[in-house]
């Protein structure tokens, strides 16, 4: 074929793919395939267009055809690797390049692609073999480092047995020794070399490398190498050297990296920290070191004055450690340093954070500190004084004793903070709209005091006051994310879900922040989801926030590969950690579960939904999760004897964690599995793409049924009492119906035959990879064993609904927060949905007849009737509440409850009224919506 003519014909397909016109790409491929029906590249490109148009079945057929011919053409290989990655068939990519490399053993590109394909799936053993071969064949030193990196990563893999690790490290070391050029010609090669030596504890060898002139330059020029150098010196006990270098950097280079100060501090106490029995000599040596360090830090602190905090902070740390190790008996030195610190740096915004670790004082020292701080209360007349005043309030608050924390005192403190806020506000009146007011933290402190007051019984009005004062703060500093974060928490407690979401969206959360911050709005979000009544806002939020995980699986491995080609070995472990932490993110699966809970309220419950969600949730059940959620983002200014502001204000007092996730996964996997016809064998046959890597926890190896039945206290502890009731309900329901499901479920052969038929109808060909033997039994193969006897429904199932209604009514009577009411109502609704899933199989009249399930059907009907009656009752109650919520009386009451914030008259009545309106309207909306959702769900399939 003439290459120019071919290029002319194939180009439009690439163009169409590049512009996302998959349809026209498919048409162009079809045209070309008519002429050249066996052309691999065209087939590969068509498969790519098909994958991108979600036509997976058709793509699979083409894919297998191309792979069967073992392609060796660059363009085809490249197109196929995209197709296969799109289908999640990463092991097939490896196989494809392996085959190509075998056919052309002198092709360096295929070798590299085989290596990368293994890198992408973390197949380090195979990667290392390829790298070894590459080094032999192509004699490029970089392949030594590829090999070493792969070996080191294999050693680090949790699946590698402990005793193998040492061997692998030795293997890496041996290979490095064969390298014709020294490692120190490149920082990252040196880094890798030192890492190997560290793992093997060959500290003297490492020292030789570091002492070399180039080695020295490298650790002085590269933070990464220096980090490793520090680590090596500390591990090998080179404290004198470590100290000398740090002193030299601090005094000669004027380096103020806190790491250097920490090195000196660690070196100071090394004589007594490293050995268990401390000799008198060691103590004397240490004591001398302390004097030297004190002298040095004092000199630095005097030289730097106001310019840098390191010297003085170093002295504080020295005093703290000296006391800890018994070199000083009382806190006098610490106290006097704290006072100096206050005088010198009390007007720095970070003062409070700096001194917090040193304020854990004994009673006597604390009272001396308190009387000192009481004697220096600053005014808010200048910006520097304002910052000082803020620090004063934060510091004073931190050491409040428990007896001084009562609802009334906290409310009074809030008043005091608000007063100071208004005094400070005038200092920032000329700032641009985009700037933050210097007085902001005082509003945040006021909100802290209100939330604290609420948490110890001060009543809902404290939360109203907090919301008003924060909303006011935002009118002055519209970009203060700290205020928004607190408002989101407070609005969720108050049940003003739409306002919480509004503030969340204004934070402009993007990309990876979705993983770390979406918990703010999506933890237990089904409590507020109106999907059942048609408003899928929250459900969409779940999907959008989960985009980052797709991005991660598509993009991050490219960068890991790039780190190899660019020889940035120092980055590889962290890149892998990033990919793994996102891929196995706890938040990812929490959001997934919330989405399933919402989805069930607004989509028809059928076998397609059941099978799909079952497979996905089962994958999640096998993961080892990483919790990447950023909780510390909410600054905490609560007294040290109290819980943090986050813990106080988190919805239902408990943040869902791994325990919660596993409890709910058990509830759902069990229900879906019973309802589904897809068993493990069918799943294995139908699954496209590789299975996600499983956790190495031995727990995962146990049979699924056993795992689902195991209840763990750590999991139960993370549930609210209402969630626990749902768990009990689901368990009783599952136990009751299981024998009938197992009896009726069609055999795998039948399920596969049906699936194959469906595929044939869609694509014209039966399902691939299914042996005729799998399909031998066709038709309704009734099982030979006898039908299990129908038992009466356990009482606890019907009781659940009565109990939930009783709880609900009690909450209404005692005027609890709307979020609490919604929690009970949505969980009761969820119970009905679980019931629908569990009983779907027994619904068709033909099934009831064939399996003689009349009695079971009657029981189910009775339970359903009970559930519907209870839910309708709740719905009516919620409607009543929502009407009340929308009334002017309610708004008036809200305004009246907000006396504290209106005291100084700076926050106008109309402003408070407006907040009241927004809060109550938002509550009205969610109460109304949930009431409607319940009615809709009750009316489904009846």
């Amino acid at each position: 074929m003439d290459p120019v003519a071919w290029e002319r014909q194939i180009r439009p397909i690439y163009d169409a793919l590049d512009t996302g016109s998959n349809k026209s790409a498919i048409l162009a491929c079809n045209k070309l395939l008519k002429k050249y029906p066996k052309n691999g590249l065209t087939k590969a490109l068509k498969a790519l267009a098909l994958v991108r148009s979600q036509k997976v079945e058709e793509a699979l057929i083409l894919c297998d055809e191309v792979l069967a011919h073992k392609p060796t053409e660059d363009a085809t290989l490249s197109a196929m690797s995209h197709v296969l990655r799109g289908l999640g068939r990463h092991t097939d990519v490896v196989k494809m390049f392996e085959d190509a490399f075998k056919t052309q053993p002198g092709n360096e590109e295929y070798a590299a692609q085989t290596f990368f394909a293994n890198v992408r799936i973390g197949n380090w053993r195979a990667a290392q073999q390829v790298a070894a071969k590459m080094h032999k064949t192509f004699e490029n030193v970089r392949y030594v480092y590829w090999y070493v990196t792969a070996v080191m990563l294999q050693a680090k893999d949790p699946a590698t047995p402990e005793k193998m690790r040492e061997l692998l490290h030795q293997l890496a070391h041996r290979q490095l020794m064969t390298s014709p050029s020294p490692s120190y010609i490149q920082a990252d090669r040196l880094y890798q070399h030192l890492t190997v030596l560290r793992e093997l504890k060959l500290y003297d060898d490492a020292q030789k490398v570091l002492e070399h002139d180039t080695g020295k330059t490298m650790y002085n020029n590269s933070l990464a190498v220096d980090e490793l150098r520090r680590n090596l010196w500390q591990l090998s006990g080179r404290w004198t050297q470590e100290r000398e270098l740090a002193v030299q950097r601090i005094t000669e280079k004027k380096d103020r990296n806190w790491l250097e100060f920490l090195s000196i501090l660690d070196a100071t106490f090394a004589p007594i920290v490293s050995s268990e029995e401390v000799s008198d000599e060691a103590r004397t040596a240490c004591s001398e070191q302390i004097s030297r360090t004190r002298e040095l830090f004092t000199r630095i602190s005097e030289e730097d004055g106001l310019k840098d905090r390191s010297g003085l902070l170093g002295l504080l740390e020295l005093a703290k450690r000296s006391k800890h190790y018994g070199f000083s008996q009382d806190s006098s030195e610490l106290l006097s340093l704290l006072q100096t610190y206050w005088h010198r740096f009390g007007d720095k915004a970070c003062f409070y954070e700096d001194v917090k670790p040193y304020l854990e004082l004994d009673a006597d020292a604390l009272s001396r500190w308190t009387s000192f701080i009481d004697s220096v209360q600053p005014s808010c007349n200048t910006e520097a004084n304002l910052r000082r005043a803020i620090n004063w309030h934060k510091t004073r608050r931190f050491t409040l004793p428990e007896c001084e924390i009562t609802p009334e005192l906290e409310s009074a403190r809030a008043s005091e903070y608000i007063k100071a806020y208004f005094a400070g506000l005038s200092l920032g009146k000329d700032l641009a709209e985009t700037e933050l007011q210097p007085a902001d933290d005082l509003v945040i402190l006021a909100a802290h005091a209100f939330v604290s007051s609420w948490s110890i019984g001060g009543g809902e009005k404290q939360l109203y006051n907090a919301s008003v004062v924060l909303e006011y703060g935002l009118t002055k500093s519209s970009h203060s994310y700290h205020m928004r974060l607190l408002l989101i928490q407070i609005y969720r407690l108050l049940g003003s879900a739409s306002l919480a979401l509004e503030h969340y969206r204004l934070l402009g959360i993007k990309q990876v922040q979705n993983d770390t911050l979406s918990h703010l709005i999506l933890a237990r979000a089904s409590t507020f989801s109106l999907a059942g009544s048609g408003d899928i806002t929250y459900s969409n939020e779940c999907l959008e926030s989960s985009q980052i995980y797709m991005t991660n699986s598509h993009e991050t491995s490219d960068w890991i590969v790039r780190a190899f080609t660019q020889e940035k070995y120092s980055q590889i472990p962290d890149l892998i950690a990033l990919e793994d932490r996102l891929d196995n993110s706890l938040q990812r699966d929490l959001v997934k579960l919330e989405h399933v809970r919402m989805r069930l309220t607004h989509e028809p419950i059928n076998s397609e939904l059941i099978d799909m969600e079952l497979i996905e949730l089962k994958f999640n059940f096998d993961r080892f999760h990483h919790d990447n959620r950023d909780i510390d983002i909410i600054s905490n200014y609560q007294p040290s004897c109290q819980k943090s502001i986050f813990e106080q204000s988190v919805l239902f007092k408990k943040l869902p964690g791994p325990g919660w996730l596993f409890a709910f996964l058990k509830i759902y996997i069990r229900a879906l599995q019973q309802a589904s016809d897809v068993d493990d064998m069918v799943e294995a046959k139908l699954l496209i793409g590789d299975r996600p890597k499983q956790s190495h926890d031995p727990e995962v190896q146990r049979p699924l049924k056993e795992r689902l039945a195991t209840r763990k206290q750590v999991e139960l502890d993370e549930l609210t009492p209402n969630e626990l009731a749902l768990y009990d309900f689901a368990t009783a329901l599952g136990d009751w119906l299981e024998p009938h499901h197992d009896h009726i479920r069609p055999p795998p052969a039948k399920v596969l035959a049906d699936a194959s038929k469906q595929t044939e109808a869609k694509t014209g060909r039966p399902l691939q990879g299914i042996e005729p033997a799998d399909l031998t039994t066709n038709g309704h193969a009734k099982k030979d064993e006898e039908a299990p006897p129908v038992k009466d429904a356990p009482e606890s199932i019907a009781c659940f609904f009565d109990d939930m209604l009783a709880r609900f009514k009690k909450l209404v009577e005692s005027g609890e927060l709307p979020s609490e009411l919604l929690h009970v109502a949505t969980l009761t609704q969820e119970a009905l949905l679980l019931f629908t899933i569990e009983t779907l199989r027994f619904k068709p009249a033909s099934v009831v007849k064939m399996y003689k399930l009349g009695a079971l059907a009657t029981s189910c009907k009775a339970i359903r009737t009970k559930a519907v009656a209870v839910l309708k009752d709740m719905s009516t109650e919620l409607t009543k509440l929502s009407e009340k919520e929308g009334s002017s009386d309610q708004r008036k009451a809200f305004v009246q409850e907000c006396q504290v914030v209106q005291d100084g008259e700076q926050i106008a009545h109309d402003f408070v009224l407006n907040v009241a309106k927004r809060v109550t309207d938002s509550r009205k909306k969610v109460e109304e919506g949930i009431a409607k959702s319940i009615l809709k769900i009750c009316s489904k399939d009846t």
Partner: protein
Amino acid sequence: MSVLRPFKATDLFKFNNINLDIWTETYGISFYLQYLTRWPDLCCVQEAPSGRMMGYVLGKAEGTGPEFHGHVTALSVAPEYRRLSLGRKMMALLEFVSDETYGGFFVDLYVRCMNKVAIGMYEGLGYSVYRRVREYYGSLGLGPGGRDEEDAFDMRKPLSRDPQRRSVRANGRDVVVSAHDGSVL
């Protein structure tokens, strides 16, 4: 006083207190990873003793011949840690590495023409305006700041390889170039 250490890929989980600030953009993960996999030594973090991130800088080395230089892509400090010379320290590191490791002729950066505080700080560090780039921040459109809001100053500071200071000029503010192709307007 803070810990100065390399920027790591997993810092993306920790940088919220810096990135939630209105003036700091959060990009896709690939943006950060392209820097970390090519110029990791030009990317660093300042961290408080508590472990909280205070600020970071991302830089790269680019250009050919006498135009080879270090470039500051992003420099950001969380609001609560401003006025502590953190920006200055991170710039010093980036300049040092651009000079010692890469042998660049200068370091450059872009700053909004209206951002007088930042311009003043960079001038204090030895940077001067090399040219004004028209509509560099075009996506925002003309705000109350007018042209100053969407135009950028390209500021430069010569390194030891440029002792003659050929990479800077005195009348840089008057040289206006197009953001699209760098042509003089």
